[in-house]
């Protein structure tokens, strides 16, 4: 089954990124994939809720692609959540529009994998840090897929990042083709 994928992309300084630039280029133009750059669409931060909701209705998969900023998403993603995921639309009474859709995050983290653990610099695993997003998906009746994480975005070589981006492309293509199982009940083991 084909699934249309909406990649909500957020990078406040896209031109100077290394990882996200490649990841984004890798999936752009894939059939069934819509790339939606939030900082480009809303340079003033004022998100058009109706337009976003209409876009969501036209896709079966929602991907948040962004760098890790302060152990979460860049600010505009939070603003997107606050304005688009309205009560009575995405959650609460009558809020069932996102039910059954899939949700995934594609995260780039500056540090290496071993900083994301107890005793490491970040002190928590990436999956732990992303719990609020996981819960957002559950609360809106969406199915949460394990995140696609790019570690060491600021220290990896260009070649490593290019190879990684091809992995991302393959993953998104498989999701769009409907090849991945509909749900991962839990994915903490996938890290």
């Amino acid at each position, binding site marked *: 089954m084909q699934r249309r994928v909406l990649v909500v992309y957020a990078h406040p300084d896209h031109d100077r990124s290394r990882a996200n630039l490649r990841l984004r280029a890798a999936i752009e133009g894939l059939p069934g994939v819509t790339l939606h750059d939030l900082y480009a669409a809303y340079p003033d931060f004022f998100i*058009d809720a109706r337009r976003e909701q209409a876009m969501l209705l036209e896709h079966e998969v929602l991907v948040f692609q962004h760098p890790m900023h302060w152990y979460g998403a860049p600010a505009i993603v939070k603003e997107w959540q606050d304005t688009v995921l309205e*009560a009575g639309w995405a959650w609460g009474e009558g809020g069932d529009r996102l039910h059954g859709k899939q949700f995934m995050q594609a995260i780039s983290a500056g540090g290496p994998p071993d900083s994301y653990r107890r005793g490491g610099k970040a002190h928590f695993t990436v999956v732990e840090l992303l719990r609020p997003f996981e819960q957002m998906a559950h609360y809106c009746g969406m199915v949460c897929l394990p995140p696609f994480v790019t570690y060491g975005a600021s220290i990896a070589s260009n070649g490593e990042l290019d190879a990684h981006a091809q992995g991302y492309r393959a993953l998104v293509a498989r999701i769009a083709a409907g090849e991945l199982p509909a749900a991962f009940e839990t994915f903490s083991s996938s890290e």
Partner: protein
Amino acid sequence: MAEHGFLHQALVYLAAGVIAVPVFKRLGLGSVLGFLVAGVAIGPWGLRLISEPETVLHFSEFGVVLLLFLVGLELNPQRLWQLRRAIFGMGGVQVAATMLAVAALGWAFGQSVTVALVAGMGFAMSSTAIALATLEEKNLLPTPGGQASFSVLLFQDLAVIPLMLALGMISPGKSGAGIDWLAAAEAIAAIVALIFAGRNLLRPVLRYIANTRLREIFLGFSLLLVLGIAALMQAAGLSMALGAFLAGVLLADSEYRHELELDIEPFKGLLLGLFFIAVGMSVDLGLLMRSPLLVLGLALGVVALKIALLYPVAKLFGYCGRADALLFALTLSQVGEFAFVLYGVAGSQQVLERATVDLLTAAVAASMLTTPLLIALYQRVIMPRLERRSERAPDAIEEHNPVIIAGFGRYGQIVSRVLRGLGIGSTVVDHDPNQIDMVRRFGSIAYYGDATRLDLLEAAGAGKAKVLVVAVDDHEAALAITRLARSHFPQLKVLARARSRSDAFEYVEMGVPAVRETFGSALDAAELALRMLGHHPHVARRMAVQFRRRDEELLVEHAPHRHDEKRLIAASQQGRGDLERLLREEAGRLRKAGEGGWR
């Protein structure tokens, strides 16, 4: 017809002005000519409704006095000091050159030296009333040409004193110069007294009067002040207008300036109108009928001669724009009302014969009629052409930048400042030489040239630049530049400036992004108004942003109907309804988020 009395006269003057002025204004000839023609129509040579123009002329001269008081209020002493070169240099050269040229011509045509010289003294003067009123009406006073005109008029007012003294010396009746020295001393004493009183006494007195908080008393005092100064100056043998001007300058920095302006303004307008009517009435049509060639020839000859002398004077003193020099020359080309006085005195002192006085006076009056026509011609025909095909060759452009900005007014300047802040260079072209010179004084680099020309765009680097910002405010020129750039430089992205919604439609149709120039500031105002009404700043901004987005969508939706007014109206009404619904929804949504959503 004096038996009809004051009521009759007032009726005739007011009716004549009210009928004639709107017509002339509509015809684009200005109110001054309207009043002059109204005067001719009701005067002794027209409908004969008024028989004694001299008394009215004398009385209404206070209009000129009030005019100069108001002009003085606009000029503080520092500003006046800045004009000193123009006043004494240009003024002196103009008066001397005109006087000598007229005298030489008169002498060459067989007049006696005395007659030729007296005629020259009168002809050298211009009409402050006509020149300033015309400039003011056409908003040309602040231009360099207007300022130069004003400076020379000021000098002429000063020159009245020595000229009258000189007339006294050449008149056959008197020969001793001793009395004249006394008069000169009196005159200087009067000016010193005026300046002293103006600096030290006027403000306390004005404050005392203002503290009564009686508007009528302040108004009465304003008039009393101006008339009093005029009387003082007249008693000292000086020009009343000059005294009023000095008083105005002394009050230019005072806190009562605006109130004085507001109070005096209507009196000035009415009296000046009356003055022009009186001048119109004193045009001796009888003499004109009897010897039209002589009167008209003399009048037009003087006007032509004055223009021929004034133009090089302006050029000599650096009012180098051809348009400004020409405006200056045309504005001052008539002979002024001082000539009436001078020739009158010369006649009574037997310096001139009665017939000569009549002839000269008729020529003076006729010359006054030409100025409004010449200025209208200048504004309609000469100025646009000079601006378009200016004599200055386009500057050689030496830099090449990623951005070209066409038009460097307030709009273009802000664009370039933002870019410059980021170290992005922009090549700036403008077609107004004054603007170029101005921004250069402030350290910006701008090139003179007409961006509607392909060769200029090429020279500015349009073949290599990335973005062309069209910032000119003339819609036709903006469209021409946009079309030119799109057809010749495909790599160049054009950003247009739309003055109005219909302009914006055209750019939508062309697919060129355009900024609507007042749209953003109007939205800012709406947003601030919402905030003043107590809306949260964030909500107010949200509304403004929503409105902007929807309105921009509507612009694109409506653009195809831009020539079909009916459909456009229908679509706009629907669009307005949509917009209202959208804003209410947005407001409701925010409330709902507060009530039903996360707390």
